[in-house]
């Protein structure tokens, strides 16, 4: 019920020390037949530098729930997390906060607003209206529309755009706030392969010019390898950390890298870890 916002104004993310900590997170739901089902079991994670962090796990493993916790969004009628703490810069996070902005798989673009107004939507809210003057936010919207390549589509409505363009709008709406943390919940999951490639490349570009902390949830092994500075593999039922490694290869990572023996070995390793942790449960996708 709390609507107060922490007062941290986002500075340029690269210059400000950032620390996001998940501490012994447990999530339980009432089971249909009584009792409780544990879907996340004592997950601890620490993010302390800007970069793209991939949360990879089978569909339905609870990775989106973890992401919602980081964003402070509680869509469910259940206390979340059931146990454990989320700390952002050492402060326990108990509700929506403006350090993190989410991008959802089902883009929440408003069908009644133009592209411009969709991206400018946050500035209709008191929080951002008080912080950013109109001249500045208009400029920011212009800039981000240019960055995502939608300047010439500003007057169109979502129904007149393709799936990829709609997801660009959602991405622009998040980045226009210059967040220190960008949370992405299978953002490209509903797109066709070619559009997904384009969007991945766009994300890499945008991240280069605005190097914030990205936590990116996916069940696509290839996507995790192509995008991630760090890949965290989650098992399912309950979700535990099955693997956690870094990839130092610079982005964009060409097709030759994706087919290289080391990459395929990584893929094998991920699938092996998952099979060991939770055999035969959930679905992963491999696109190459």
């Amino acid at each position, binding site marked *: 019920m709390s609507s107060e916002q922490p007062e941290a104004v986002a500075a340029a993310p690269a210059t400000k020390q950032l620390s996001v900590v998940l501490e012994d997170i447990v999530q339980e739901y009432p089971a249909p037949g009584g009792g409780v089902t544990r879907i996340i079991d004592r997950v601890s994670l620490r993010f302390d530098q800007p970069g793209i962090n991939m949360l990879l796990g089978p569909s339905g493993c609870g990775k989106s729930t973890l992401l919602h916790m980081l964003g402070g969004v509680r869509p469910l009628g259940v206390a979340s997390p059931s146990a454990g703490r989320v700390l952002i810069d050492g402060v326990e996070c108990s509700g929506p906060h403006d350090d993190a902005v989410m991008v959802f798989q089902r883009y929440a673009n408003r069908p009644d607003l133009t592209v411009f107004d969709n991206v400018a939507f946050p500035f209709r*809210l008191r929080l951002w209206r008080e912080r950013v003057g109109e001249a500045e936010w208009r400029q920011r919207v212009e800039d981000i529309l240019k960055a995502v390549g939608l300047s010439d589509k500003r007057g169109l409505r979502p*129904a007149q755009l393709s799936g990829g363009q709609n997801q660009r709008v959602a991405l622009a709406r998040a980045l226009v706030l210059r967040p220190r943390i960008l949370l992405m919940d299978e953002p490209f999951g509903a797109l066709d392969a070619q559009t997904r490639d384009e969007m991945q490349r766009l994300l890499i570009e945008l991240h280069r010019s605005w190097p914030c902390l990205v936590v990116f949830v996916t069940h696509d092994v290839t996507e995790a390898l192509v995008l991630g500075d760090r890949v965290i593999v989650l098992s399912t039922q309950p979700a535990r950390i099955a693997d956690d490694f870094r990839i130092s290869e610079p982005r964009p990572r060409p097709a030759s890298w994706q087919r290289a023996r080391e990459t395929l070995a990584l893929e094998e390793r991920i699938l092996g870890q998952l099979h060991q942790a939770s055999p035969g449960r959930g679905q992963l996708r491999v696109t190459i």
Partner: protein
Amino acid sequence: MSDFWNPYAALAPRQRRLLGVAAVAAVLLLWSLLAVSGLVSATKLPAPWDVLAALAYLGWHEGQSMLLTATLWSVGRLLVAGALVIAIGIPVGIAMGAAPRVNAVLSPLVDPFRSAPVVALLPILVMWLGIGETMKIAFLFIGAVVYLIPMVRDAIQAVPQSYWIGARDLGATPWECVQRAVIPMAMPRIADAVIVGFSVMWTYITVAEYVNARQGLGQLIQNARRFSAWDQVFAGIIVIIALALATYQFMVWLKRRLYPWETEQ
């Protein structure tokens, strides 16, 4: 005829219009035949041309138009009641849809009336409010608002949660989420509720105007009935149907103009 039993087959607009006109023409023809044959006495079923003549008589006779006066009175009452329905029903419905506690309190008070015979309330309204305009407006208001409120509530609750979550994540307060994300998305269905409300009021207008009939289309019909002028009764009914249809068509057109995006997605 291969797609006669096919709910998904789209008719050409011309064909659809043709079939509709044919149906109305068939009824008129049957009606005319009955009138000419003498099978039904003219006092029970006036001929179509008699109804037309009555319509002309009511429309203009001795320098005045009874029909226009009556229509203006009825439309006036409908507009006053409609304004009240919108001003009170929409906010109440939104509050019920957006706040489960408000819904829990109000729904047992509102929902039963949806299936209750509102006409049965008329004697009580007469007792409380007398037989003047207040009673007529109140009757129309109650008749429509008990439909409108639950429909508005359902419209709010039908908005996908993703809009609420999205706005909340961007820093909206809970009320801002409702105001800036949920209500705009519910507007097309709220407009549907208003359209239904007006249709309901057109069906109740004659009932409201039967009591202490002084002015209005209900009075016109009631008066004609008293003098057994069945051609005028039929004419009055036809006018009410035409006005209700025109109101409906206009409001649907208005809704499409105001919320063109609803059909796009």
